Protein backbone atom coordinates (compact mmCIF):
# COMPACT_ATOMS: atom_id res chain seq x y z
CA UNK A 1 0.00 0.00 0.00
CA UNK A 2 1.51 3.37 -1.01
CA UNK A 3 2.49 5.84 1.72
CA UNK A 4 -0.18 8.47 2.37
CA UNK A 5 1.11 12.02 1.49
CA UNK A 6 1.94 14.18 4.53
CA UNK A 7 -0.53 16.86 3.56
CA UNK A 8 -3.32 14.35 3.25
CA UNK A 9 -2.42 12.89 6.61
CA UNK A 10 -2.65 16.32 8.25
CA UNK A 11 -6.07 16.93 6.74
CA UNK A 12 -7.23 13.64 8.14
CA UNK A 13 -5.82 14.50 11.55
CA UNK A 14 -7.47 17.94 11.50
CA UNK A 15 -10.84 16.41 10.74
CA UNK A 16 -10.38 13.85 13.50
CA UNK A 17 -9.37 16.57 15.97
CA UNK A 18 -12.52 18.49 15.12
CA UNK A 19 -14.69 15.43 15.62
CA UNK A 20 -13.08 14.57 18.94
CA UNK A 21 -13.29 18.16 20.12
CA UNK A 22 -17.00 18.18 19.40
CA UNK A 23 -17.47 15.00 21.40
CA UNK A 24 -15.40 16.20 24.33
CA UNK A 25 -17.11 19.58 24.29
CA UNK A 26 -20.42 17.82 24.75
CA UNK A 27 -19.01 15.74 27.61
CA UNK A 28 -17.54 18.83 29.25
CA UNK A 29 -20.96 20.45 29.26
CA UNK A 30 -22.54 17.39 30.81
CA UNK A 31 -20.05 17.17 33.68
CA UNK A 32 -21.14 19.64 36.33
CA UNK A 33 -18.43 19.01 38.89
CA UNK A 34 -15.10 20.70 38.24
CA UNK A 35 -13.13 18.02 40.05
CA UNK A 36 -14.74 15.33 37.91
CA UNK A 37 -13.92 17.33 34.79
CA UNK A 38 -10.20 17.43 35.56
CA UNK A 39 -10.12 14.06 37.27
CA UNK A 40 -8.50 15.25 40.46
CA UNK A 41 -9.30 17.00 43.75
CA UNK A 42 -8.59 20.73 43.72
CA UNK A 43 -9.60 21.88 47.20
CA UNK A 44 -7.46 21.31 50.23
CA UNK A 45 -7.05 22.67 53.72
CA UNK A 46 -4.36 25.22 54.45
CA UNK A 47 -2.82 25.69 57.89
CA UNK A 48 -3.77 28.93 59.63
CA UNK A 49 -0.44 30.58 60.50
CA UNK A 50 -1.49 33.17 63.06
CA UNK A 51 2.11 33.94 63.96
CA UNK A 52 2.61 35.50 60.52
CA UNK A 53 -0.52 37.66 60.56
CA UNK A 54 -0.30 41.43 60.19
CA UNK A 55 -2.06 43.65 62.75
CA UNK A 56 -5.07 44.12 60.49
CA UNK A 57 -5.32 40.39 59.86
CA UNK A 58 -5.03 39.71 63.58
CA UNK A 59 -7.82 42.19 64.33
CA UNK A 60 -10.10 40.51 61.76
CA UNK A 61 -9.18 37.06 62.99
CA UNK A 62 -9.81 37.98 66.66
CA UNK A 63 -13.22 39.41 65.78
CA UNK A 64 -14.26 36.26 63.88
CA UNK A 65 -12.84 33.88 66.48
CA UNK A 66 -14.51 35.76 69.31
CA UNK A 67 -17.85 35.57 67.53
CA UNK A 68 -17.49 31.81 67.22
CA UNK A 69 -16.37 31.43 70.81
CA UNK A 70 -19.39 33.35 72.10
CA UNK A 71 -21.64 31.29 69.90
CA UNK A 72 -20.29 28.01 71.30
CA UNK A 73 -20.27 29.22 74.90
CA UNK A 74 -23.86 30.42 74.61
CA UNK A 75 -26.45 30.51 77.43
CA UNK A 76 -27.52 27.14 78.96
CA UNK A 77 -30.49 25.38 77.42
CA UNK A 78 -33.90 26.29 78.80
CA UNK A 79 -36.23 23.46 79.90
CA UNK A 80 -38.75 22.56 77.23
CA UNK A 81 -41.89 20.44 77.32
CA UNK A 82 -41.39 16.89 76.09
CA UNK A 83 -43.52 15.36 73.32
CA UNK A 84 -43.32 13.54 69.98
CA UNK A 85 -45.04 13.92 66.63
CA UNK A 86 -44.41 10.32 65.57
CA UNK A 87 -47.72 8.40 65.25
CA UNK A 88 -47.65 4.97 66.87
CA UNK A 89 -44.03 5.34 67.93
CA UNK A 90 -44.82 8.67 69.62
CA UNK A 91 -45.58 7.29 73.07
CA UNK A 92 -42.41 5.22 73.55
CA UNK A 93 -40.26 8.04 72.11
CA UNK A 94 -41.83 10.57 74.52
CA UNK A 95 -41.28 8.12 77.37
CA UNK A 96 -37.62 7.82 76.45
CA UNK A 97 -37.26 11.61 76.30
CA UNK A 98 -38.91 11.97 79.73
CA UNK A 99 -36.49 9.41 81.16
CA UNK A 100 -33.53 11.27 79.68
CA UNK A 101 -34.91 14.54 81.04
CA UNK A 102 -34.90 13.06 84.51
CA UNK A 103 -31.15 12.44 84.21
CA UNK A 104 -30.55 16.06 83.18
CA UNK A 105 -29.95 17.10 86.78
CA UNK A 106 -26.94 14.77 87.00
CA UNK A 107 -25.67 15.80 83.58
CA UNK A 108 -25.88 19.45 84.59
CA UNK A 109 -24.04 18.69 87.75
CA UNK A 110 -21.22 17.26 85.69
CA UNK A 111 -21.24 19.84 82.91
CA UNK A 112 -22.19 22.93 84.91
CA UNK A 113 -18.62 23.87 85.78
CA UNK A 114 -17.51 23.37 82.19
CA UNK A 115 -20.29 25.65 80.88
CA UNK A 116 -19.47 28.36 83.38
CA UNK A 117 -15.80 28.12 82.44
CA UNK A 118 -16.63 28.44 78.73
CA UNK A 119 -18.79 31.50 79.26
CA UNK A 120 -16.22 33.22 81.45
CA UNK A 121 -13.41 32.38 79.03
CA UNK A 122 -15.38 33.97 76.22
CA UNK A 123 -16.04 37.06 78.34
CA UNK A 124 -12.39 37.32 79.34
CA UNK A 125 -11.22 36.96 75.73
CA UNK A 126 -13.60 39.70 74.67
CA UNK A 127 -12.28 41.98 77.42
CA UNK A 128 -8.69 41.29 76.35
CA UNK A 129 -9.47 42.02 72.70
CA UNK A 130 -11.07 45.34 73.67
CA UNK A 131 -8.12 46.17 75.92
CA UNK A 132 -5.60 45.45 73.14
CA UNK A 133 -7.67 47.73 70.90
CA UNK A 134 -7.29 50.54 73.45
CA UNK A 135 -3.54 49.95 73.65
CA UNK A 136 -3.37 50.11 69.86
CA UNK A 137 -5.09 53.50 69.88
CA UNK A 138 -2.73 54.79 72.55
CA UNK A 139 0.27 53.53 70.60
CA UNK A 140 -0.95 55.26 67.47
CA UNK A 141 -1.39 58.49 69.41
CA UNK A 142 2.13 58.17 70.82
CA UNK A 143 3.51 57.57 67.32
CA UNK A 144 1.78 60.69 66.08
CA UNK A 145 3.26 62.72 68.91
CA UNK A 146 6.75 61.38 68.15
CA UNK A 147 6.24 62.33 64.50
CA UNK A 148 5.23 65.84 65.56
CA UNK A 149 8.36 66.11 67.72
CA UNK A 150 10.49 64.95 64.79
CA UNK A 151 8.91 67.63 62.66
CA UNK A 152 9.67 70.25 65.31
CA UNK A 153 13.28 69.04 65.42
CA UNK A 154 13.60 69.44 61.67
CA UNK A 155 12.18 72.93 61.91
CA UNK A 156 14.62 73.81 64.70
CA UNK A 157 17.55 72.29 62.82
CA UNK A 158 16.76 74.26 59.69
CA UNK A 159 16.34 77.45 61.71
CA UNK A 160 19.71 76.79 63.31
CA UNK A 161 21.29 76.30 59.90
CA UNK A 162 19.68 79.50 58.75
CA UNK A 163 21.00 81.40 61.76
CA UNK A 164 24.43 79.81 61.28
CA UNK A 165 24.61 80.92 57.67
CA UNK A 166 23.51 84.43 58.67
CA UNK A 167 26.28 84.60 61.24
CA UNK A 168 28.59 83.52 58.42
CA UNK A 169 29.41 80.21 60.06
CA UNK A 170 29.55 76.89 58.24
CA UNK A 171 26.13 75.14 58.42
CA UNK A 172 25.61 71.89 60.29
CA UNK A 173 26.74 68.76 58.48
CA UNK A 174 23.38 67.97 56.97
CA UNK A 175 24.60 67.36 53.46
CA UNK A 176 25.38 63.76 54.23
CA UNK A 177 22.30 61.71 53.41
CA UNK A 178 21.18 59.16 55.95
CA UNK A 179 21.81 55.63 54.67
CA UNK A 180 18.92 53.77 52.98
Amino acid at each position, binding site marked *: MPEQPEHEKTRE*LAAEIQRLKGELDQKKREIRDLEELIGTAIDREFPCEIGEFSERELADYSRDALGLLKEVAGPPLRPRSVGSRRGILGEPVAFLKRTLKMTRFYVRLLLGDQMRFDQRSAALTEALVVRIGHYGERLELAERRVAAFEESL*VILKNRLDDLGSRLDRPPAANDVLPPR
Partner: protein
Amino acid sequence: MTPSQYNQRVPRPPENCGLERRATAMELSREITQIAKQSGVQAAYNRLLQAEVALGLRKPSLAIYDHAFHIIGGAQKYGLTMGSALSDVFDVTILANKDIRLEQFEDWYGLDLSRCRVKVIRLPYYEERNAFHIDPAFITRDVVNPFHLVSRESGNYDVFVNNSMNEMVCPLSNISVLICHFPERRPKSYFYAHRYAITICNSRYTAEWIEKRWKFSPQRHLYPPVDMEASGGEFPKKKYVLSVARFEPEGTKRQREMVEAFSTLTREWPDIVRGWKFILAGGSLPNNRYLSELENLVARNAAGSIELRVNIPMAELRSLYQEATLFWHLCGLTRKDPSEVEHFGMTTVEAMQNGSVPIVYDGGGLREIVDHGVNGFRVRSGAELIDYTVRLFLDQGLARELGQAARARAGTFSRATFEMKVRTFFAEVLESYRRAA
Protein backbone atom coordinates in the same frame (compact mmCIF):
# COMPACT_ATOMS: atom_id res chain seq x y z
CA MET B 1 -16.96 25.81 11.58
CA THR B 2 -17.82 22.63 9.64
CA PRO B 3 -15.13 20.00 9.04
CA SER B 4 -15.04 20.83 5.32
CA GLN B 5 -14.53 24.52 6.01
CA TYR B 6 -11.90 23.57 8.53
CA ASN B 7 -10.10 21.36 6.02
CA GLN B 8 -9.94 24.20 3.50
CA ARG B 9 -8.02 26.25 6.06
CA VAL B 10 -5.51 23.55 6.83
CA PRO B 11 -2.06 24.89 6.01
CA ARG B 12 0.98 22.76 5.33
CA PRO B 13 2.28 21.48 8.65
CA PRO B 14 5.52 22.90 10.03
CA GLU B 15 8.61 20.79 9.53
CA ASN B 16 9.77 18.42 12.25
CA CYS B 17 6.34 18.28 13.80
CA GLY B 18 6.58 15.10 15.85
CA LEU B 19 2.87 14.58 16.18
CA GLU B 20 2.26 14.95 12.46
CA ARG B 21 4.87 12.36 11.62
CA ARG B 22 3.84 9.63 13.97
CA ALA B 23 0.15 9.97 14.57
CA THR B 24 -2.64 8.80 12.41
CA ALA B 25 -6.22 9.78 13.04
CA MET B 26 -6.91 6.43 14.61
CA GLU B 27 -3.90 6.60 16.91
CA LEU B 28 -4.93 10.06 18.00
CA SER B 29 -8.45 8.91 18.74
CA ARG B 30 -7.07 6.04 20.83
CA GLU B 31 -4.73 8.34 22.72
CA ILE B 32 -7.50 10.84 23.48
CA THR B 33 -9.79 8.12 24.82
CA GLN B 34 -7.01 6.89 27.07
CA ILE B 35 -6.22 10.39 28.40
CA ALA B 36 -9.91 11.05 29.08
CA LYS B 37 -10.09 7.83 31.08
CA GLN B 38 -6.90 8.43 33.04
CA SER B 39 -6.81 12.19 33.58
CA GLY B 40 -10.30 13.45 32.85
CA VAL B 41 -12.15 14.97 29.90
CA GLN B 42 -10.43 18.35 30.25
CA ALA B 43 -6.96 16.84 29.88
CA ALA B 44 -8.05 15.09 26.68
CA TYR B 45 -9.51 18.31 25.34
CA ASN B 46 -6.28 20.15 26.19
CA ARG B 47 -4.30 17.56 24.24
CA LEU B 48 -6.37 18.32 21.15
CA LEU B 49 -5.86 22.07 21.59
CA GLN B 50 -2.13 21.53 21.78
CA ALA B 51 -2.15 19.29 18.73
CA GLU B 52 -3.96 21.92 16.68
CA VAL B 53 -1.32 24.52 17.52
CA ALA B 54 1.56 22.12 16.93
CA LEU B 55 0.17 21.20 13.51
CA GLY B 56 -0.26 24.87 12.66
CA LEU B 57 -4.01 24.46 12.17
CA ARG B 58 -4.78 27.72 13.98
CA LYS B 59 -3.26 30.58 15.93
CA PRO B 60 -2.76 29.78 19.61
CA SER B 61 -5.52 31.20 21.76
CA LEU B 62 -5.03 33.27 24.91
CA ALA B 63 -7.60 34.56 27.38
CA ILE B 64 -6.95 37.35 29.87
CA TYR B 65 -9.31 37.48 32.81
CA ASP B 66 -9.92 40.19 35.39
CA HIS B 67 -13.03 40.43 37.54
CA ALA B 68 -12.51 44.20 37.66
CA PHE B 69 -12.06 44.91 33.94
CA HIS B 70 -15.20 47.08 34.05
CA ILE B 71 -13.45 49.49 36.43
CA ILE B 72 -10.55 51.69 35.34
CA GLY B 73 -7.32 50.82 37.14
CA GLY B 74 -3.57 50.30 36.91
CA ALA B 75 -3.76 46.53 37.35
CA GLN B 76 -6.29 46.27 34.54
CA LYS B 77 -4.04 48.38 32.30
CA TYR B 78 -1.26 45.90 33.01
CA GLY B 79 -3.29 42.95 31.69
CA LEU B 80 -4.69 44.78 28.70
CA THR B 81 -1.28 46.10 27.64
CA MET B 82 -0.17 42.49 27.72
CA GLY B 83 -3.15 41.51 25.55
CA SER B 84 -2.44 44.28 23.08
CA ALA B 85 1.24 43.28 22.82
CA LEU B 86 0.36 39.63 22.18
CA SER B 87 -2.54 40.10 19.80
CA ASP B 88 -0.42 39.57 16.66
CA VAL B 89 0.78 36.14 17.82
CA PHE B 90 -2.25 34.94 19.79
CA ASP B 91 -5.97 34.97 19.27
CA VAL B 92 -6.70 37.11 22.34
CA THR B 93 -9.97 37.05 24.30
CA ILE B 94 -10.58 39.45 27.15
CA LEU B 95 -12.71 37.77 29.80
CA ALA B 96 -14.79 40.06 31.99
CA ASN B 97 -17.62 39.55 34.45
CA LYS B 98 -19.53 42.73 33.60
CA ASP B 99 -20.49 44.42 30.35
CA ILE B 100 -17.59 46.27 28.79
CA ARG B 101 -16.68 47.30 25.25
CA LEU B 102 -13.27 47.36 23.55
CA GLU B 103 -13.76 51.05 22.76
CA GLN B 104 -13.98 51.81 26.48
CA PHE B 105 -10.63 50.13 27.06
CA GLU B 106 -9.12 52.06 24.18
CA ASP B 107 -10.44 55.33 25.64
CA TRP B 108 -9.28 54.57 29.17
CA TYR B 109 -5.82 53.26 28.40
CA GLY B 110 -5.01 54.40 24.85
CA LEU B 111 -4.32 50.83 23.73
CA ASP B 112 -4.89 49.21 20.36
CA LEU B 113 -7.05 46.19 21.10
CA SER B 114 -8.69 45.95 17.68
CA ARG B 115 -7.49 42.37 17.20
CA CYS B 116 -8.90 41.21 20.53
CA ARG B 117 -12.45 40.27 21.45
CA VAL B 118 -14.37 40.59 24.69
CA LYS B 119 -16.36 37.80 26.31
CA VAL B 120 -18.52 38.45 29.35
CA ILE B 121 -19.06 35.62 31.82
CA ARG B 122 -21.80 36.66 34.19
CA LEU B 123 -21.60 35.36 37.74
CA PRO B 124 -25.12 34.69 39.04
CA TYR B 125 -23.98 35.02 42.69
CA TYR B 126 -23.06 38.69 42.17
CA GLU B 127 -25.78 39.41 39.58
CA GLU B 128 -28.48 38.34 42.05
CA ARG B 129 -27.03 40.74 44.61
CA ASN B 130 -26.81 43.52 42.04
CA ALA B 131 -23.15 44.02 42.94
CA PHE B 132 -21.10 46.40 40.80
CA HIS B 133 -17.85 45.47 42.56
CA ILE B 134 -17.14 41.77 42.35
CA ASP B 135 -15.53 41.15 45.69
CA PRO B 136 -14.13 37.62 46.13
CA ALA B 137 -13.77 38.30 49.88
CA PHE B 138 -17.48 37.46 50.30
CA ILE B 139 -16.92 33.89 49.19
CA THR B 140 -16.41 31.32 51.92
CA ARG B 141 -16.59 27.53 51.89
CA ASP B 142 -20.28 27.84 52.82
CA VAL B 143 -21.19 28.89 49.27
CA VAL B 144 -20.49 27.25 45.94
CA ASN B 145 -17.51 28.97 44.30
CA PRO B 146 -19.07 31.38 41.77
CA PHE B 147 -15.73 31.67 39.95
CA HIS B 148 -15.88 28.04 38.83
CA LEU B 149 -17.67 29.39 35.76
CA VAL B 150 -14.51 31.28 34.85
CA SER B 151 -12.42 28.20 35.66
CA ARG B 152 -14.47 26.18 33.17
CA GLU B 153 -14.06 28.87 30.51
CA SER B 154 -10.28 28.89 31.05
CA GLY B 155 -10.18 25.33 29.69
CA ASN B 156 -11.16 26.53 26.21
CA TYR B 157 -7.85 28.31 25.52
CA ASP B 158 -4.24 27.32 25.08
CA VAL B 159 -3.12 30.01 27.50
CA PHE B 160 -5.14 31.45 30.37
CA VAL B 161 -3.86 34.60 32.07
CA ASN B 162 -5.49 35.52 35.36
CA ASN B 163 -4.78 39.22 35.77
CA SER B 164 -7.01 39.76 38.79
CA MET B 165 -6.08 39.39 42.42
CA ASN B 166 -8.49 36.52 42.53
CA GLU B 167 -7.00 33.16 43.33
CA MET B 168 -10.42 31.52 43.38
CA VAL B 169 -10.18 30.77 39.67
CA CYS B 170 -8.78 27.31 39.09
CA PRO B 171 -6.97 27.23 35.73
CA LEU B 172 -7.81 24.37 33.37
CA SER B 173 -5.82 25.44 30.31
CA ASN B 174 -2.59 23.91 29.05
CA ILE B 175 -0.61 26.99 30.04
CA SER B 176 -1.78 29.06 32.98
CA VAL B 177 -0.35 32.36 34.12
CA LEU B 178 -1.23 34.19 37.31
CA ILE B 179 -0.35 37.85 37.46
CA CYS B 180 -0.05 38.88 41.06
CA HIS B 181 -0.15 42.57 41.93
CA PHE B 182 -0.09 41.70 45.64
CA PRO B 183 -0.97 38.53 47.59
CA GLU B 184 -3.84 40.09 49.56
CA ARG B 185 -5.40 36.79 50.59
CA ARG B 186 -3.74 34.07 52.56
CA PRO B 187 -4.37 30.52 51.34
CA LYS B 188 -7.78 29.40 52.57
CA SER B 189 -11.05 28.40 50.93
CA TYR B 190 -11.00 28.02 47.14
CA PHE B 191 -7.37 29.01 46.89
CA TYR B 192 -5.71 27.94 43.62
CA ALA B 193 -2.68 30.22 43.15
CA HIS B 194 -0.34 27.23 43.42
CA ARG B 195 -2.13 25.51 40.50
CA TYR B 196 -0.88 28.06 37.97
CA ALA B 197 2.13 27.02 35.93
CA ILE B 198 3.64 30.50 35.92
CA THR B 199 3.26 33.37 38.37
CA ILE B 200 4.31 36.84 37.31
CA CYS B 201 4.66 39.61 39.88
CA ASN B 202 4.75 43.36 39.40
CA SER B 203 7.59 44.18 41.80
CA ARG B 204 10.16 42.58 44.05
CA TYR B 205 8.13 43.77 47.01
CA THR B 206 5.19 41.70 45.76
CA ALA B 207 7.51 38.75 45.11
CA GLU B 208 8.74 38.92 48.68
CA TRP B 209 5.20 38.80 50.02
CA ILE B 210 4.20 35.96 47.69
CA GLU B 211 7.03 33.96 49.20
CA LYS B 212 5.98 34.87 52.73
CA ARG B 213 2.25 34.32 52.33
CA TRP B 214 1.93 31.69 49.63
CA LYS B 215 5.19 29.83 50.22
CA PHE B 216 6.37 29.73 46.62
CA SER B 217 8.49 31.98 44.44
CA PRO B 218 7.03 33.70 41.37
CA GLN B 219 8.77 32.65 38.16
CA ARG B 220 8.79 36.07 36.53
CA HIS B 221 9.01 39.64 37.61
CA LEU B 222 7.65 42.27 35.24
CA TYR B 223 7.28 45.93 36.20
CA PRO B 224 4.04 47.56 35.05
CA PRO B 225 3.98 49.61 31.84
CA VAL B 226 4.04 53.37 32.41
CA ASP B 227 3.55 55.73 29.50
CA MET B 228 3.27 59.30 30.68
CA GLU B 229 6.28 60.69 28.81
CA ALA B 230 5.72 64.17 27.45
CA SER B 231 5.64 63.94 23.64
CA GLY B 232 7.23 67.34 22.98
CA GLY B 233 10.34 66.81 25.13
CA GLU B 234 11.09 68.79 28.28
CA PHE B 235 8.71 71.49 29.49
CA PRO B 236 9.59 74.50 31.68
CA LYS B 237 8.93 73.63 35.30
CA LYS B 238 6.73 75.65 37.62
CA LYS B 239 6.84 75.91 41.40
CA TYR B 240 4.47 72.99 41.86
CA VAL B 241 4.63 70.12 44.27
CA LEU B 242 2.37 67.41 42.90
CA SER B 243 0.69 64.37 44.38
CA VAL B 244 -1.31 61.96 42.23
CA ALA B 245 -3.26 59.22 44.00
CA ARG B 246 -6.83 58.08 44.47
CA PHE B 247 -8.64 59.72 47.37
CA GLU B 248 -9.39 56.45 49.10
CA PRO B 249 -11.95 56.65 51.91
CA GLU B 250 -9.54 54.79 54.23
CA GLY B 251 -6.86 57.41 53.60
CA THR B 252 -4.24 54.81 52.65
CA LYS B 253 -2.59 57.21 50.21
CA ARG B 254 -1.82 59.54 53.13
CA GLN B 255 -2.99 62.79 51.53
CA ARG B 256 -3.88 64.21 54.96
CA GLU B 257 -0.27 63.81 56.17
CA MET B 258 0.99 65.55 53.03
CA VAL B 259 -1.43 68.47 53.44
CA GLU B 260 -0.30 68.81 57.07
CA ALA B 261 3.36 68.75 56.01
CA PHE B 262 2.83 71.47 53.40
CA SER B 263 0.86 73.53 55.93
CA THR B 264 3.84 73.28 58.30
CA LEU B 265 6.12 74.40 55.49
CA THR B 266 4.02 77.47 54.70
CA ARG B 267 3.72 78.33 58.38
CA GLU B 268 7.38 77.88 59.31
CA TRP B 269 9.16 79.05 56.14
CA PRO B 270 6.83 81.55 54.49
CA ASP B 271 9.74 83.21 52.65
CA ILE B 272 11.02 79.97 51.15
CA VAL B 273 7.60 78.55 50.29
CA ARG B 274 6.24 81.77 48.78
CA GLY B 275 5.19 81.12 45.18
CA TRP B 276 5.08 77.34 45.60
CA LYS B 277 1.83 75.45 45.30
CA PHE B 278 0.91 71.93 46.41
CA ILE B 279 -1.55 70.23 44.06
CA LEU B 280 -3.23 66.95 44.98
CA ALA B 281 -4.81 65.25 41.98
CA GLY B 282 -6.73 61.98 42.06
CA GLY B 283 -9.93 60.13 41.47
CA SER B 284 -12.72 59.78 43.98
CA LEU B 285 -16.12 58.20 44.28
CA PRO B 286 -19.05 60.47 45.27
CA ASN B 287 -19.75 61.15 48.98
CA ASN B 288 -16.17 60.51 50.03
CA ARG B 289 -15.84 61.55 53.68
CA TYR B 290 -12.06 61.49 53.60
CA LEU B 291 -12.08 63.94 50.69
CA SER B 292 -14.51 66.26 52.56
CA GLU B 293 -12.20 66.23 55.57
CA LEU B 294 -9.25 67.08 53.34
CA GLU B 295 -11.18 69.98 51.80
CA ASN B 296 -11.87 71.35 55.29
CA LEU B 297 -8.26 70.90 56.32
CA VAL B 298 -7.05 72.80 53.24
CA ALA B 299 -9.60 75.60 53.79
CA ARG B 300 -8.52 75.98 57.43
CA ASN B 301 -4.75 75.79 57.04
CA ALA B 302 -3.48 76.64 53.62
CA ALA B 303 -6.14 78.04 51.34
CA GLY B 304 -4.51 79.38 48.21
CA SER B 305 -1.31 77.38 48.46
CA ILE B 306 -2.91 73.90 48.34
CA GLU B 307 -5.32 72.75 45.64
CA LEU B 308 -7.36 69.57 45.39
CA ARG B 309 -8.14 68.48 41.84
CA VAL B 310 -10.57 65.60 41.79
CA ASN B 311 -11.41 63.40 38.78
CA ILE B 312 -9.63 65.66 36.30
CA PRO B 313 -9.31 64.74 32.61
CA MET B 314 -6.14 63.05 31.35
CA ALA B 315 -4.95 66.14 29.42
CA GLU B 316 -4.99 68.21 32.60
CA LEU B 317 -3.15 65.52 34.51
CA ARG B 318 -0.49 65.31 31.79
CA SER B 319 0.10 69.04 31.94
CA LEU B 320 0.39 68.91 35.75
CA TYR B 321 3.04 66.22 35.45
CA GLN B 322 4.91 68.30 32.88
CA GLU B 323 4.87 71.41 35.07
CA ALA B 324 5.53 69.95 38.53
CA THR B 325 9.05 70.33 39.93
CA LEU B 326 8.53 67.98 42.87
CA PHE B 327 6.38 64.93 43.38
CA TRP B 328 5.26 63.66 46.79
CA HIS B 329 3.98 60.15 47.50
CA LEU B 330 3.62 58.90 51.06
CA CYS B 331 1.44 55.80 50.61
CA GLY B 332 2.52 53.38 53.33
CA LEU B 333 3.66 55.96 55.87
CA THR B 334 2.90 54.75 59.43
CA ARG B 335 0.99 51.74 58.04
CA LYS B 336 1.76 48.32 59.43
CA ASP B 337 -0.14 46.13 57.02
CA PRO B 338 2.00 45.26 53.96
CA SER B 339 -1.00 45.56 51.65
CA GLU B 340 -1.34 49.22 52.61
CA VAL B 341 2.15 50.04 51.38
CA GLU B 342 2.53 50.87 47.67
CA HIS B 343 3.09 47.60 45.81
CA PHE B 344 4.79 49.38 42.95
CA GLY B 345 3.98 53.10 42.51
CA MET B 346 2.90 53.86 38.95
CA THR B 347 2.19 57.55 39.56
CA THR B 348 5.71 58.06 40.90
CA VAL B 349 7.12 56.68 37.65
CA GLU B 350 4.72 58.89 35.67
CA ALA B 351 6.06 61.94 37.49
CA MET B 352 9.67 60.84 36.97
CA GLN B 353 9.05 60.35 33.26
CA ASN B 354 8.23 64.06 33.20
CA GLY B 355 11.36 65.07 35.11
CA SER B 356 9.69 65.78 38.48
CA VAL B 357 11.84 64.95 41.49
CA PRO B 358 10.15 62.28 43.61
CA ILE B 359 10.15 62.45 47.40
CA VAL B 360 8.45 59.23 48.39
CA TYR B 361 7.87 56.95 51.33
CA ASP B 362 10.78 54.59 51.95
CA GLY B 363 8.93 51.32 51.65
CA GLY B 364 7.24 48.81 49.35
CA GLY B 365 7.74 49.00 45.59
CA LEU B 366 8.82 52.65 45.80
CA ARG B 367 12.25 51.48 46.93
CA GLU B 368 12.69 49.80 43.57
CA ILE B 369 11.90 53.00 41.68
CA VAL B 370 13.65 55.81 43.54
CA ASP B 371 17.35 55.66 44.34
CA HIS B 372 17.84 57.82 47.40
CA GLY B 373 19.91 60.91 46.61
CA VAL B 374 20.42 59.84 42.97
CA ASN B 375 17.07 60.49 41.28
CA GLY B 376 14.93 61.58 44.24
CA PHE B 377 14.59 61.03 47.96
CA ARG B 378 13.00 58.36 50.12
CA VAL B 379 11.63 59.44 53.48
CA ARG B 380 10.35 57.66 56.58
CA SER B 381 8.44 60.49 58.26
CA GLY B 382 6.69 63.77 57.64
CA ALA B 383 9.72 65.47 59.18
CA GLU B 384 12.07 63.99 56.58
CA LEU B 385 9.64 64.98 53.84
CA ILE B 386 9.80 68.58 55.03
CA ASP B 387 13.58 68.48 55.35
CA TYR B 388 14.25 67.26 51.80
CA THR B 389 11.60 69.53 50.34
CA VAL B 390 13.18 72.61 51.94
CA ARG B 391 16.52 71.51 50.58
CA LEU B 392 15.13 71.30 47.04
CA PHE B 393 13.21 74.57 47.36
CA LEU B 394 16.49 76.27 48.22
CA ASP B 395 18.67 74.45 45.70
CA GLN B 396 17.04 74.66 42.27
CA GLY B 397 20.22 73.30 40.64
CA LEU B 398 19.93 70.11 42.68
CA ALA B 399 16.25 69.84 41.75
CA ARG B 400 17.10 70.12 38.04
CA GLU B 401 19.89 67.56 38.31
CA LEU B 402 17.73 65.05 40.16
CA GLY B 403 14.85 65.69 37.76
CA GLN B 404 17.02 64.68 34.81
CA ALA B 405 18.23 61.59 36.64
CA ALA B 406 14.61 60.73 37.47
CA ARG B 407 13.64 60.99 33.80
CA ALA B 408 16.47 58.64 32.83
CA ARG B 409 15.55 56.14 35.55
CA ALA B 410 11.87 56.13 34.56
CA GLY B 411 12.75 54.91 31.06
CA THR B 412 13.19 51.44 32.59
CA PHE B 413 9.44 51.26 33.17
CA SER B 414 8.20 52.36 29.72
CA ARG B 415 5.43 50.61 27.85
CA ALA B 416 7.86 49.68 25.06
CA THR B 417 10.11 47.87 27.54
CA PHE B 418 7.12 46.07 29.06
CA GLU B 419 5.79 44.97 25.66
CA MET B 420 9.18 43.74 24.55
CA LYS B 421 9.57 41.65 27.71
CA VAL B 422 6.04 40.26 27.40
CA ARG B 423 6.58 39.23 23.75
CA THR B 424 9.91 37.59 24.52
CA PHE B 425 8.50 35.69 27.48
CA PHE B 426 5.40 34.42 25.69
CA ALA B 427 7.43 33.48 22.60
CA GLU B 428 9.49 31.19 24.85
CA VAL B 429 6.34 29.76 26.42
CA LEU B 430 4.77 29.13 23.04
CA GLU B 431 7.90 27.53 21.68
CA SER B 432 8.05 24.98 24.48
CA TYR B 433 4.29 24.39 24.15
CA ARG B 434 4.67 23.52 20.47
CA ARG B 435 7.73 21.42 21.11
CA ALA B 436 6.03 19.48 23.90
CA ALA B 437 3.31 18.37 21.48
